[in-house]
């Protein structure tokens, strides 16, 4: 079970509080955890990744074990500490004020 932390606005959209838990049947990759989140919460489709291209939206970031893995390919395995639930997988609204 992977612990996922959503940013405030996506928690509101999905109507959840705190962390959510994603169960992944196959390989625990970056793409698989995003697929799981979008399956659990269809309202989030298009808000993290583009509907068609599946590319990450420009001001969304993915963090795991204090590493920014936003630009890693979708088949990148998640760190063991995230897969074991020791560390959360973070979806973050990037700092983009100005």
């Amino acid at each position, binding site marked *: 079970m992977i612990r996922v932390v959503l940013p405030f*606005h996506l928690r509101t*959209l999905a109507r959840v509080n705190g962390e959510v838990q994603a169960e992944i049947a196959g390989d625990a990759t970056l793409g698989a955890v995003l697929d799981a989140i979008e399956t659990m*919460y*269809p309202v989030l*489709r*298009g808000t993290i990744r583009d*509907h068609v291209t599946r590319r990450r939206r420009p001001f*969304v970031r993915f963090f795991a074990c204090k590493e920014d893995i936003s630009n890693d390919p979708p088949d990148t395995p998640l760190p063991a500490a995230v897969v074991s639930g020791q560390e959360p997988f973070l979806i973050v609204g990037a700092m983009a004020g100005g």
Partner: protein
Amino acid sequence: MSKIRLSVGTKKGAFILTSDGKRKNWQVSGPHFAGWEIYHMKGSPVDPNRIYASQSSGWFGQIIQRSDDGGITWDTPGGGAAPSPDGMPKGESNKFVYEGEVGKHLWYDGTQHPWEFKRVWHLEPSLTDPETVYAGVEDASIFKTTNGGKTWQELPGLRNTKGHLWQPGAGGMAVHTILLDPKNPKRIYVAISAAGAFRTEDAGQSWKPINRGLKSPYELPDPDAEVGHCVHRIALHPSRPDVLFMQKHWDVLRTDNAGEQWREVSGNLPTDFGFPIDVHAHEPETIYVVPIKSDSEHYPPDGKLRVYRSRSGGNEWEALTKGLPQKDCYVNVLRDAMSVDLLDPCGVYFGTTGGQVYGSTDGGDTWDAIVRDLPAVYSVEAQTLK
């Protein structure tokens, strides 16, 4: 007794303002979708409790929201977590994908640039079916849903109308106005900054530019240019859908033949730059604009917030000032931020970038602030409820 509902979209959320028919005491509900930009909300004329809202953010993109109880509760159509009777929700109410070859439009540097969906600027519910809504989007196109917002399909004929010559203005390139002809269900008008006005006679399959008579010498050196005009807003009275009024980047204009030919009716306005234009509910020749100083100074001239009313369909204008700030006022009124109700006397409403929503219960003779401190107001839609 009738009631009035104002759906107010702002830079940081949505607000629902309601009053009885006296229009003196208002209840304020909100912010809904706090922190998100709400470009537009509009209720269905067929089912007044159904309201559609366009919610967007630079981080998380576009969301479509729908209320079936007059704005008390909201849902993303077909986006819920629980399985619906017709299967798992697909979460496609925010999926706006251009049809076929995406194509290109004119970019700022004169090159061709691919169309990219950014957000929904305007939602226009059908006059006959609460499940059908048209969406005006950036980059400019029009989409349609026939299932209450669960899915959207583009009407691509609009982009095929010399779309390669359309060029974004400073505010982007969006379909910001959609007018449905109440007498001819196959006729729709749209307006785009900075492409112009267009009309369809076949329910959106094919479109025609209707910009003859528009003059934009500083933006378009070609006086006969069919497209490329910066139209800010168009409006009609339901009883006369062949008569349109337009607030252009500069100039206020009217057409009496469904856009075949326009003529300027700026007359004695202190400046003919502005964004909104609207028509009195019961007097088809009474129109309203809010003059703004210039394209580079988006605030009222002389620090005085003045609505101008013409009772003659243009050319002769009077300033409406009672109840509006007449000094040190430097707000703007955006294109979708003016609306009228259907009561008699007609109510007129507008919101400002300073967060005020003003209302008049006497056709504009006098004004009161309904609220003063909302976030910057993007849109105001008045609904008259039985």
